[in-house]
């Protein structure tokens, strides 16, 4: 079957993703452009006997290969030689969009113009003569409404038509320029190629520049604008319709220097609340279903099939447990990604960028970085994924490397446990100190990175604010699903592998009765001298840090296992039928809790359950208040979270992620050292 490679190009916010989503549905795939952190969306669909490969290019205004997104778009268009260019245009802003269209037409590839948001244009009294447009440009023109999917069905037939006819688009400039271009060699070259030849041939270029009294670039831009202007005048009619603009009215509040902040706090609060409280009951249920039901059930079956004991344990605890661990992220990432996509597509996130820029640019960051940073307080994993909405790679990397220091509820569990033992008098003070310390380390990290790696001033701020729009529910669901799938494939496999590895460390050699004799215990003992200077001087504490790399809160349960020397994962009486019924019952409770959480005001994710008293007594003997504070500081700063590490690998690459992990360890050690020494003086 023949493949047609289609480049989907257009300005930002013209609805490219929505259109692509209507064409491809869940066949849409996300990934990164090679070597960069810019997101790439693509889809493969079969149509009329062709395999149509659609590649979504970054939203750009020009084909000037300077900014990273533009470089990606240009390099794809020039090097991959797409068979067809699908240019999505925002009809209400037709004239402005046509500048990019003109540059795309210069490439000489068969082109389909999609006049999107046709309904909005009509409301604004804008009419476009599409037949005339087709004739003038020798392209296909399709009218669509991205929100409803109206007209999208005409896109693929148009793609096939221009491809089969090998239609070369027409773009004509002034007779002077056309005359010069026609003298250049290069039979069958596209206009863009001829322009490049002209730019690189001084003897041809100079006379043109001298005659016009300006550089060739400016001459060409003026030619393009003249072409756009002429085309618009020919095909577009605008009746003036006086109507109230909802966007302007909303913006008067949302972007107001004072009123905007309560709105922002409200939006963040609601997002946070829904994302974390709604998903937590499901996270807990998935965890319990896998660990308490599926694991033991698998164990029973394997035992009945006479598999050796070590394999039964390995499969039911490590494999099923590992899969379960990956799945616990799904409700959280799904809910948060849905909300972030809703905020992005409705037009709110670009407004946050405007509103918060005043504060964030002091840190050398863009206003929009504030959202992922705040989300980090709920869970670092989806917060890092949320940096995908950021445009510049520099900002994305800076923010991604700040997020892991935002203290999440998993850390709060550890803090609450230690604080309840050592700082009963002023728990809030200690916990607030730790949260602020995290923010301080994040700011210091950004500062350090800006001085050492990402030098140069903050990038300029040029952005378009789209009007407020209701995104289609189908698009929201598909985009969330596509990202979840990507998480499961890429981060999920790493999380699974590492969690199996940690299980092996804790359970090897197979005969080891308790953790002291296991590989993990041995590593823990070797690590003691490393942690001694920061006040953690016994192997039980250092060993508990190994399983805690899965997730920080595990440090408490692993301390429970190590300190009380009970065997990990003992299987008690297990009745599959009863357990299944009880699991179904708790699923019902989870659904109820999730919805009930939506109507309460408090954020339940920040409430911590009390842990067992017996362990607290043992911990009291092994730690002092200053070593406890040092331990909490270490847990706060060191990226002891497999989920976070896996998404770091996915978002910023393996090398940077490993470097960051090392950095977080060194930073955690150093800050803990200072905290330990200073608090030893104060707290004695």
């Amino acid at each position, binding site marked *: 079957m023949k493949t047609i490679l289609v480049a989907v190009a257009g300005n930002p916010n013209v609805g490219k993703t929505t259109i692509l989503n209507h064409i491809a549905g869940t066949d849409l795939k996300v990934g990164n452009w090679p070597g960069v952190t810019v997101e790439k969306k693509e889809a493969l669909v079969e149509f009329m006997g062709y395999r149509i490969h659609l590649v979504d290019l970054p939203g750009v205004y020009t084909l000037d290969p300077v900014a990273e997104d533009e470089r990606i778009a240009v390099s794809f268009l020039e090097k991959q030689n797409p068979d067809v260019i699908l240019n999505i245009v925002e009809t209400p802003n037709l*004239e402005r969009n046509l500048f990019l269209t003109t540059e795309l037409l210069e490439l000489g590839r068969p082109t389909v113009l999609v006049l999107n948001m046709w309904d909005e244009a009509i409301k604004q009294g804008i009419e476009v003569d599409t037949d005339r447009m087709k004739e003038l440009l020798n392209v296909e023109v399709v009218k669509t409404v991205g929100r409803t999917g109206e007209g999208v069905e005409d896109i693929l037939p148009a793609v096939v038509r221009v491809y089969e006819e090998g239609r070369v688009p027409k773009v004509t400039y002034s007779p002077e320029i056309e005359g010069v271009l026609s003298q250049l060699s290069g039979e069958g070259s596209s206009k863009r190629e001829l322009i490049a030849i002209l730019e690189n041939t001084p003897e041809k270029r100079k006379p043109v520049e001298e005659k016009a009294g300006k550089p060739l670039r*400016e001459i060409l831009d003026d030619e393009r604008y003249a072409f756009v202007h002429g085309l618009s005048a020919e095909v577009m009619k605008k009746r003036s319709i006086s109507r109230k603009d909802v*966007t302007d009215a909303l913006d008067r509040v949302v*972007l107001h220097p004072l009123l905007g902040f309560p709105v922002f706090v409200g939006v963040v609060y609601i997002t946070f609340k829904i994302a974390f409280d709604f998903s937590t009951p499901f996270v807990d249920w998935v965890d319990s279903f896998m660990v308490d039901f599926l694991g033991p059930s698998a164990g029973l079956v394997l035992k009945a099939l006479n598999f050796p004991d070590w394999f039964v344990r390995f499969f039911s605890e490590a494999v099923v447990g590992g899969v379960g661990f990956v799945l616990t992220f799904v409700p959280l990432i799904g809910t948060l990604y849905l909300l972030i996509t809703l905020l992005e597509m409705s037009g709110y996130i670009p407004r946050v960028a*405007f*509103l918060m*820029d005043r504060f964030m*640019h002091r840190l050398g960051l863009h206003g929009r970085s504030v959202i992922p940073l705040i989300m980090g307080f709920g869970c670092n994993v989806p917060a890092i994924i949320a940096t995908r909405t950021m445009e510049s790679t520099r900002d994305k990397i800076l923010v991604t490397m700040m997020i892991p220091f935002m203290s999440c509820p998993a850390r709060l569990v550890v803090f609450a446990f230690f604080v309840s033992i050592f700082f009963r008098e002023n728990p809030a003070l200690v916990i607030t100190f730790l949260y602020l310390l995290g923010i301080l380390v994040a700011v210091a990290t950004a500062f350090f990175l800006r001085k050492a790696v990402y030098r140069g001033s903050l990038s300029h701020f*040029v952005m*378009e604010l789209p009007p407020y729009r209701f995104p289609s529910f189908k698009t929201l669901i598909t985009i969330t699903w596509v990202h979840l799938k990507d998480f499961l494939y890429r981060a999920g496999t790493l999380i699974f592998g590492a969690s199996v590895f940690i299980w092996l460390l804790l359970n090897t050699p197979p005969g080891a009765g308790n953790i002291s004799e296991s590989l993990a215990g041995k590593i823990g003992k070797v690590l003691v001298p490393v942690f001694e200077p920061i006040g953690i001087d016994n192997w039980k504490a250092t060993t508990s840090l190994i399983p805690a790399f899965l997730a920080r809160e595990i440090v408490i349960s692993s301390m429970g296992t190590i300190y009380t020397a009970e065997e990990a994962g003992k299987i008690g009486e297990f009745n599959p039928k009863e357990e299944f019924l009880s699991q179904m019952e708790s699923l019902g409770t989870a659904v109820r809790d999730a919805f009930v959480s939506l109507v309460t005001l408090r954020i339940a994710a920040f409430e911590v359950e009390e842990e067992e008293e017996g362990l607290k007594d043992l911990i009291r003997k092994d730690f002092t208040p200053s070593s406890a504070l040092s331990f909490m500081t270490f847990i706060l700063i060191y990226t002891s979270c497999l989920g976070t590490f896996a998404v770091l690998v996915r978002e910023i690459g393996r090398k940077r992620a490993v470097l960051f992990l090392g950095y977080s360890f060194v930073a955690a050690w150093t800050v803990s050292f200072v905290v330990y020494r200073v608090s030893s003086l104060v707290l004695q």
Partner: protein
Amino acid sequence: MDLRSVDLGQEFTVKSLKARDLPLVRKLTAMGLREGKKARVLLKNGRVILLRLDNSRLIIDRDLAGYIEVA
């Protein structure tokens, strides 16, 4: 005078753009901010300015606004 000195709510016409070969200035032009275009300053917030231009709203920072001569 350049765009930085335009007051809130005031309408202006773009007279010329300095450093037209600068990629960012070229981007501004492609976003519709060209000679002869009329626009209005909707809001200012710290270093950023919000403009209304035809059907679109543009945010640009003050440094960049310095490249835009207005009348």
